[in-house]
């Protein structure tokens, strides 16, 4: 069974014939999968979604839906539903009429309409709003109407284009969970576009990171988090983003980090006299030596923000702006020197020119205790 499966093969889109909106994207989205397209604005994620919906034509490549080549299939024949960023509710119709619009178009029987509407309305807790117009609803309620519309269509694929971006932070967190639950209950394939990496991380089975039309990496959220393919993914996923700084490889293959008293050794040789990017997640930095700490970096603290359960530090680490996220409440003075302790296995190395993850693992050579 390939119902609900979507396969992109070398999908390419250009609006002006010279620049890529989407460049050679290939992926297979499995039935029942929650697949998130994520990237900064203008990265081509919405364009890709619209191509899957059939609202936008492909410049090159193939789209297979439900196992069939679907390049020339009209949107209504692709057996999908779509939730738009602004919900696209018909302002002149009541909630109920909005929910049933698609079913009426498809000439579903009155009884069946009733049944599906009841089901969706109960699922989303919308019963008391059925007779209202969209303008009388709050943002979250409108969002639910849009979801209900997708639910009643009973299509095996649902596309969502930044559905949560018009909601406030609290509601967004709640709807994230609801949408995820809904998708699992219905067992449908979800293709979800967002610019918010938190949504991507929390909701996705797998995600695709896009940048300027180019696919950066496809994979499970934690794989992307732990093993970013390049510096872009590294800094895009995670909040605060991964800290990066430029380091130099010397003749003997050791790595010199500006400001660091001890060099690092790599397990694989790199061409000498080369500059690379060194990256580390903010939560892997500590103000006190931990059991597994094997390397340290003196920094200059800039600001200290106490968030209640954690403390956020910004600092100057050998010329680069870094952030550290430290559990607990630390009342520190800003504008002073400090030492960060870390485990060198948490470090990532990226090439300076194309940003690719070099994949080398680092270790700190055991030395006499250095007094700082």
């Amino acid at each position, binding site marked *: 069974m390939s119902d609900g499966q979507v396969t992109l093969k070398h999908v390419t889109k250009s609006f002006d014939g010279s620049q890529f909106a989407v460049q050679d994207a290939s992926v297979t989205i499995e039935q029942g999968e929650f697949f998130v397209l994520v990237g900064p604005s203008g990265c081509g994620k919405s364009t890709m979604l619209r191509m899957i*919906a059939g*609202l936008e034509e492909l410049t090159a490549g193939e789209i297979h839906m439900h196992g069939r080549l679907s390049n020339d299939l*009209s949107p209504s024949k*692709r057996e999908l539903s779509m939730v738009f960023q602004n919900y*696209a509710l018909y*302002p002149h119709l009541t909630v109920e009429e909005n929910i049933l619009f*698609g079913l009426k*178009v*498809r000439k579903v029987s009155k009884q069946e309409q009733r049944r599906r509407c009841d089901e969706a309305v109960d699922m989303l807790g919308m019963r008391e709003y059925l007779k209202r117009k969209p303008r009388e609803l709050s943002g979250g309620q409108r969002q639910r109407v849009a979801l209900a519309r997708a639910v009643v269509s009973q299509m095996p694929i649902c596309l969502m284009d930044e559905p949560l971006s018009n909601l406030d932070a609290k509601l967004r967190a709640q709807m994230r969970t609801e949408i995820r639950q809904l998708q699992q209950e219905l067992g449908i394939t979800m293709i979800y576009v967002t610019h918010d990496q938190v949504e991507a991380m929390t909701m996705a089975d797998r995600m695709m990171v896009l940048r300027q039309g180019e696919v950066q990496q496809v994979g499970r959220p934690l794989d992307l988090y732990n093993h970013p393919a390049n510096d872009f993914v590294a800094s895009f996923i995670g909040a605060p983003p991964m800290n990066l700084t430029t380091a130099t490889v010397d003749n003997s293959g050791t790595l010199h980090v500006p400001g660091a008293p001890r060099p690092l050794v790599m397990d694989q040789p790199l061409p000498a006299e080369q500059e690379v990017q060194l990256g580390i997640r903010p939560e892997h930095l500590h103000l006190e030596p931990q059991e597994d700490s094997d390397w340290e970096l003196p920094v200059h603290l800039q600001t200290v923000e106490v968030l209640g359960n954690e403390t956020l530090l910004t600092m100057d680490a050998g010329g680069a702006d870094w952030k550290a996220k430290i559990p607990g409440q630390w009342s520190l003075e800003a504008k002073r020197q400090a030492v960060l302790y870390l485990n060198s296995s948490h470090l990532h190395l990226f090439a300076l020119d194309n940003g690719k993850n070099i994949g080398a693992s680092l270790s700190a050579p055991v030395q006499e205790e250095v007094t700082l």
Partner: protein
Amino acid sequence: MKQAEELPRRVETVDEAVKRYRIPSSRSFWQKTVNYRTALLYLLPSLLLFGVFMFYPMFYSLYLSFFFTDAQGDPTTFVGFENYAYLWESASFRRSVLVTIIFVLLTVPASVILALFLALLANEKLRGIGWYRTIFASTLGMSVAASAVIWLFMFHPTTGVLNAALQALQLPAVSWLQDSTMALISISITTIWMNTGFSFLILLGGLQNIDEHLYESARIDGAGYFYQLRRITVPMLSPTLFFIITITFINAFQSFGQVDILTGGGPAEATNLIIYSIYREAFIYYQFGPASAMAIVLFAAVLLLTLLQFKFGERKVHYQ
């Protein structure tokens, strides 16, 4: 650790808050009304213009409609509702009313439908559509007199382009302005043509305001063009359509220039719209009393019909 400060007891009701904590304002009456006085100052020019050129003539017409007047238009004798009674008796006026109603029925629906059709065409995203938008809107920039003269030439029985076209198609020539039935139709055609530019422009603006996503959503549901037109475009456009219908309707009652230039109310009063008969009564026959009465009747009729339109038509309008 320091404890959070304990809050003092709060007032429980608004009344209590007012009683306990309200302090007298230090602003004087003069200071408090400064916004109103500024507003009045901004309103003054338009109030003045409306007063002199709209309200004063309106009330003076009402006043004159109860008098006999001399040739200068000064009231001479108070006659009460005599002028209105005279209108009621006048076959010519009743004929005018009938002609006006037919004229309105001929022009309003046709104008709106034509403008909507052109707006739908011009709303498509095609290469060079800006050119068509300009052309379709161009009658907006034409004066009534210029348009009427252009049509006068086109309607000419022997040298006009319309009859030339009919002839080329082997069809009999039409006496556009000379025939008493055709004359009203000809005037209506001219009026529809003149109305198109404005209505087109407003409707096009309305169409462009409709969220593109609504159509995309409908396409995903499988709705065809006409289903979308009926279930999305027309309801979404209804405030604009209502506005256009109201304006076209009021304009139709006030169509004067094209009648004056094309037919002069003829032949045999076949195109003698109320507004034109007011003009004739007042400025050709110097009967200012009956003319004022007609003007008041016309005003009342338009007002009433517009109010009815708002009462019944607006129910079908979906404001966002």
